[in-house]
């Protein structure tokens, strides 16, 4: 996309709160809320795609990292009164530590076993969140998580939240871009596409897989913290295995391994249902059907459709 196009998009996205207020005066809060969720989900999907798309490890454990981050931030903020700027990195760190600890043994497993192992992790995390009532308060939820404050600035209004979420998305996008290009990116792709050859070329697959896994987890944990602060409530229902399904849909629908694809996928997945306003169960049927169609006909997802449309060159 030409420079001017990017600039225009950036301006559009950055001034969204005012545009929304002008275009939908009565519904602006709802629309902003949807945009906030979309931005957070897109960031989460990108963090997931790092692992799935760029090192080729089908991890099903992402909800666990999201949950660890969210709960860490929630507990630190409510029990120990840590400020937002402190509990956010703590959340990311906690998730990264869990990922590192779990990743080392899990990555020794073959592909399918790895998937099962990560699935087990997600399940265990969900069960622990639900039952370790002394710490997480289980299904009674942690309530009263305070609004985030950036130094002297308190994020209390929806537009403020929107910009925070947008900033997060931008940061994640930059990080994603940085990690998946240049030498590091090539190393990731080497591990994904041809592990034995990569090994022979001196690239340790375990090291790189673990790196992607841990970074993805840290990002997920940070986003979890933001989410918890936004809702001011954190319950175990937010980190079930169903979250993985949503992420898989976004990533594969959008286009595994592609920044643009995943972001577009997140937008479609989060914003579209609000626009269409179908009965919720039908919505899921349509998603499933759409996903099936896309995966079968166009495995590159929407991204490959976009490429074909714009006549771009080599895929992946």
């Amino acid at each position, binding site marked *: 996309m030409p420079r001017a196009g990017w600039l225009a998009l950036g301006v559009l996205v950055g001034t969204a709160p005012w545009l929304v207020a002008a275009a939908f005066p009565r*519904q602006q809060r709802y629309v902003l809320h949807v945009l906030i969720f979309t931005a957070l989900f897109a960031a989460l999907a990108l963090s997931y795609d790092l692992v799935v798309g760029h090192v080729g490890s089908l991890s099903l454990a992402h909800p666990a990292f999201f949950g660890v981050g969210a709960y860490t931030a929630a507990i630190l903020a409510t029990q120990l009164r840590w400020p937002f700027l402190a509990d956010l990195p703590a959340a990311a760190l906690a998730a990264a530590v869990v990922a590192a600890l779990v990743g080392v043994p899990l990555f020794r497993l073959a592909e399918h076993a790895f998937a099962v192992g990560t699935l087990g992790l997600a399940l265990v995390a969900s069960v622990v969140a639900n039952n370790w009532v002394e710490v997480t308060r289980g299904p*009674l939820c942690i309530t009263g998580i305070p609004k985030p404050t950036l130094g002297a600035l308190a994020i209390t209004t929806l537009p403020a939240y929107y910009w925070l979420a947008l900033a997060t998305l931008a940061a994640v996008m930059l990080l994603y871009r940085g990690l998946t290009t240049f030498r590091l990116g090539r190393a990731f792709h080497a591990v994904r596409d041809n592990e034995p050859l990569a090994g022979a070329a001196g690239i340790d697959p375990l090291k790189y897989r673990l790196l992607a896994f841990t970074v993805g987890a840290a990002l997920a944990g940070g986003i979890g913290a933001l989410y918890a602060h936004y809702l001011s409530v954190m319950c175990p229902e937010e980190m079930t295995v169903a979250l993985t399904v949503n992420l898989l849909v976004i990533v594969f629908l959008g286009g595994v391994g592609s920044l643009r694809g995943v972001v577009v996928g997140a937008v479609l997945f989060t914003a579209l249902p609000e626009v269409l306003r179908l009965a919720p169960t039908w919505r899921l049927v349509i998603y499933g059907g759409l996903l099936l169609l896309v995966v079968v006909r166009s495995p590159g997802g929407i991204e490959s459709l976009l490429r074909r449309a714009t006549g771009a060159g080599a895929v992946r």
Partner: protein
Amino acid sequence: MRLALTLATVLLLAFSAGAQAPPIRIGFASAMSGPAAITGEGVRWGATLAVEEINAKGGVAGRKIEAFFADNKAQPGEAVSAVRKLADVDQVDVIIGQTHSGACLGAMPVVKEIGLPMVIEACSHPKIRELSGKGGNEWTFRVALDDEIMAYTFARYMARQGVKSSSILAMNNDFGRGAAVAYDAAFKKAKIQLLSTEFFDPGQPDYRPVLTRLKRANPETILAVILASDGAPFMRQFRELGLTQKVFSRGSLGSAEFLHQVRDNPKVGDGVVEASYWITGLDPEWDKKWTERYKVPPRIHGSLSAITLKWAVVPALEIALKKHGKADRKTIRDALEEVDVKDSPLGPIKFDANHQAWINMILIEMRDGQLRILEKLPTSPALLN
């Protein structure tokens, strides 16, 4: 002269008929999809039936009611989306719902921010009462009783019956966990010894491991926090394993739904005493209408939303319209504080300083496939001391 008068009258009538006041918009939020979808379906059915009923009688002070629905998936994040959708997109004046405690807790800060009254029909978390009303969240109201209130009342009743020990078996969700905490404290106060507490995942079919554990703990009674759909396999396996404890339950075990599920052998449920605040039979006309329309026994959440609409929200609308001539969010909120209904099917509906209505608790016994009301216990804040 007569012609002019007639013409004027006709024109006046035509004019007023055309310029009818817009309908009052009421939002209903519950779990419309996901594993708890059955509750959302019940709410939708109950709300639809009740709204039709009200409109058929001419509406509220001449104004019709329009219902809007939103899905909270029983999750706090989705509850926020649901509230905002109802508030901003559907422009509702009042919300009834959430049904599930996590969703209620997620929705509460948002209705406060927007300034939209929400009347909760079923969430049972005691914190909701603490957080609502004067000095707290002034936009949330609750008709249903919470676990603390019910636990203290029920435990006292059990103690009166001479019960000395019990074990708790509860669903592993907000409802079950909240109840378990409440009954733990209530048993202590009523001097009933709590021997063990077990949790199970709703929807899972095999209770034998947990029944074995219960058997080993050997309590005199079991307090089951369970819904009808899980209750059916539970009671079957209870009998299968030959347990003999008296079962006190809190949920919807003692219900028409349960009896429908065990209709091949209704004696499976004999002797169970259920504490609730709703049961079929409180409003026989409603039950009949429901069964005719939906072909299944009336469901609790659907009936609760309908009762909340008819006996809490509608009176508030009437008060608002009479006093201020309009029913918008603020006037409805103020009007809710003045509602004083003595004889709803649930008992008296009057919101105290914490915006809690102290409806009756009902004890129901199941025997031979029949439900029988044992006792109706009025509740009040004094119970908690």
